[in-house]
């Protein structure tokens, strides 16, 4: 249950800090930028509670670096992987595909595995930033277990570059105890933000969804790069900005402690919030919006390539993947995993919206990732 009044306890703060260490809180590229990551690591080492498991170097090495999204794994699986192989999983969290691309374009990311979304993979292949996967090192991958629409973006030019992780939708989550009526559309999302929910709404720090859903307000395509349509979306976003609580892709803390009442939200995170706080509900917009599929991929020049394959293979093991799904609440496209999950999860309306809602959704288009106008629009909106 939610309690607006209770201050954070010491216990809770440490838990938050631990979530943070596990990489589920706030965009963390500033760690790299400011050198604070090192400070954190030193501090973590000094606190017994926070110190990572000592890894024993085996043939795959003592470390594997994973770049992924917030609240997207079961940390217990990483611990089990480290215990089994000796490779400790170091997690870097990102709030947008643009951020991931920027890191890889700049070079020297140090990542072994990362989690790109469907529409970005062709760009990575064109820019020669990822390598084709060697299926002999991924015995747990079974192409036949996947629905094509959630798996086909992993294949570019006949070569397999990425294997599916999860799919989902981008909808909205709100605190129903504060709302006059359930949210059903992006029109309501922005209109209520500018009235009843002023100062209580969050949008993603992510051009695809924030611009895309603003486009849906007008009934345009989620993927539009039309100058006039983008101008409409920009005007809406600039008008909405003074009414926003925050622009962030890490929206769970503010929803959980009651600072914010409404947010753009990815499926599984909607599930996580609803599971812990039943007042928080989730829906996709009836005008449409995003349906997506995330993949595991290996960057060119990954420093620990063997460990990268070992980690992907471990995480797509149906047994392990089922544990992941139970923890993070995102739908899985792998039918072998779904066979292991409780039926109520497969019937859950948050994870699996009704067909007429799903049909209105669009997969992100590759052009949105590199379109300079969308990138510049988002940057202008943020510094407005």
């Amino acid at each position, binding site marked *: 249950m939610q309690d607006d009044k209770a201050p954070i306890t010491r216990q809770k703060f440490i838990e938050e800090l631990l979530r943070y260490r596990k990489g589920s809180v706030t965009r963390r590229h500033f760690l790299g930028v400011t050198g604070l990551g090192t400070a954190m690591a030193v501090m973590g080492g000094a606190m017994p509670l926070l110190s990572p498991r000592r890894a024993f170097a085996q043939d795959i090495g003592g470390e594997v670096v994973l770049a992924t999204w917030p609240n997207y794994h079961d940390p217990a699986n990483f611990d089990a992987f480290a215990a089994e192989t000796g490779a400790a999983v170091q997690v870097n969290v990102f709030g947008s595909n*643009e*951020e991931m691309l920027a890191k890889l374009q700049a070079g020297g990311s140090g990542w072994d595995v990362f989690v790109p979304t469907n529409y970005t993979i062709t760009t990575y292949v064109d820019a020669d930033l990822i390598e084709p996967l060697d299926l002999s090192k991924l015995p747990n991958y079974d192409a036949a277990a996947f629905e094509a629409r959630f798996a086909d973006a992993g294949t570019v030019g006949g070569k397999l570059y990425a294997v599916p992780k999860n799919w989902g939708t981008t909808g909205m989550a709100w605190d129903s105890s504060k709302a006059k009526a359930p949210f059903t559309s992006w029109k309501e999302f922005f209109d209520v933000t500018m009235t009843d929910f002023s100062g209580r709404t969050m949008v993603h720090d992510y051009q695809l969804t924030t611009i895309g859903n603003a486009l849906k307000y007008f009934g345009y395509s989620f993927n539009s790069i039309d100058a006039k349509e983008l101008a409409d979306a920009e005007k809406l976003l600039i008008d909405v900005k003074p009414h926003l609580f925050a622009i962030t892709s890490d929206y769970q803390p503010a929803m959980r402690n009651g600072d914010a009442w409404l947010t753009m939200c990815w499926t599984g995170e909607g599930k996580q919030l609803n599971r812990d706080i039943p007042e928080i509900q989730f829906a996709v917009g009836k005008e449409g919006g995003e349906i997506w599929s995330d993949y595991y991929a290996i960057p060119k020049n990954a420093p620990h390539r063997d460990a990268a394959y070992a980690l992907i293979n471990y995480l797509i093991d149906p047994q392990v993947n089922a544990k992941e799904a139970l923890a993070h609440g995102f739908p899985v496209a792998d039918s072998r995993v779904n066979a292991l999950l409780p039926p109520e999860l497969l019937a859950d309306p948050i994870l699996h919206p009704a067909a007429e809602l799903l049909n209105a959704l669009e997969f992100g288009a590759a052009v949105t990732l590199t379109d*300079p106008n969308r990138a510049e629009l988002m940057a202008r909106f943020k510094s407005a």
Partner: protein
Amino acid sequence: MAISRHKARLLLLGPAGLWYAALLVLPLAVVLVYSFGERAAAGGYAPAFTLAQYANLGSRWAAFKNTLVLAPAGTLAALLIAYPLAYFLAVRVNPKWRTALLVLVIVPFWTSILIRSYAWIYLLGGRGIPTLLADLGLGDWRLINTPFAVLVGIVYGYLPLMVFPVYVSLEKLDKRLLEAAADLGAPPWRSFLQVTLPLSLPGVATGSMLVFILLMGEYLIPQMLGGGKVFFVGNALVDLFLQSRNWAFGSAMSVTLVATMLVVVTLYMRFLKRIGAARDDIGVM
């Protein structure tokens, strides 16, 4: 064997010179060159010679405005809080407690600023200070993700950097000057204004400069306590490099930030010199 003067100079300046050349001058030159370029098709940098990036700076005016308002405001607020504290530590406190109290000023530095800022998210968030204020009947306050929250964060984060220089200049103060002022009939407020304050100005200048320069480049605290809404130039820069991948525009903005900083700091130095000269004229020193 004697080393020639010339060689000695090279030996003394060599390491620092190389360091600055490799890690400051060279990167700055790259940034300058990039600032005249263009964004590559998929993001990044493409060579060109255009002033388009500089022409577009107006679209980031809000970030410059936030920085140019909040950095001086933060410096001033830090000074107003740090000065009495430093005065107390340097002049008033029993010397046997002094070291312990000075250590207390440093203690927060033992924890990463990141974690301390993270704690402020909860203090300023709905269940923190606003709840307290509401319970006291003081109304509905929203503090987190506002310019005020950012101001609190930067003053909190940079206070020790202001306390120490001021403390050092006050601690060196010759007490006999105050006695002389008193003997000549000056009331305490007057000896403070005419003796203590002018003599502590070098510390005030150093502390302000230190804090101000760091605040101009601040990124972390607006990011954490501003909710992505209170943008500093630093935040806009990170956005340009790490999200929209417009290196050319980001470089132009960096160059502009450095230039702005140089202008402001030069003006400030001049102002200090003038105060110093005025001080010498009335013969306080």
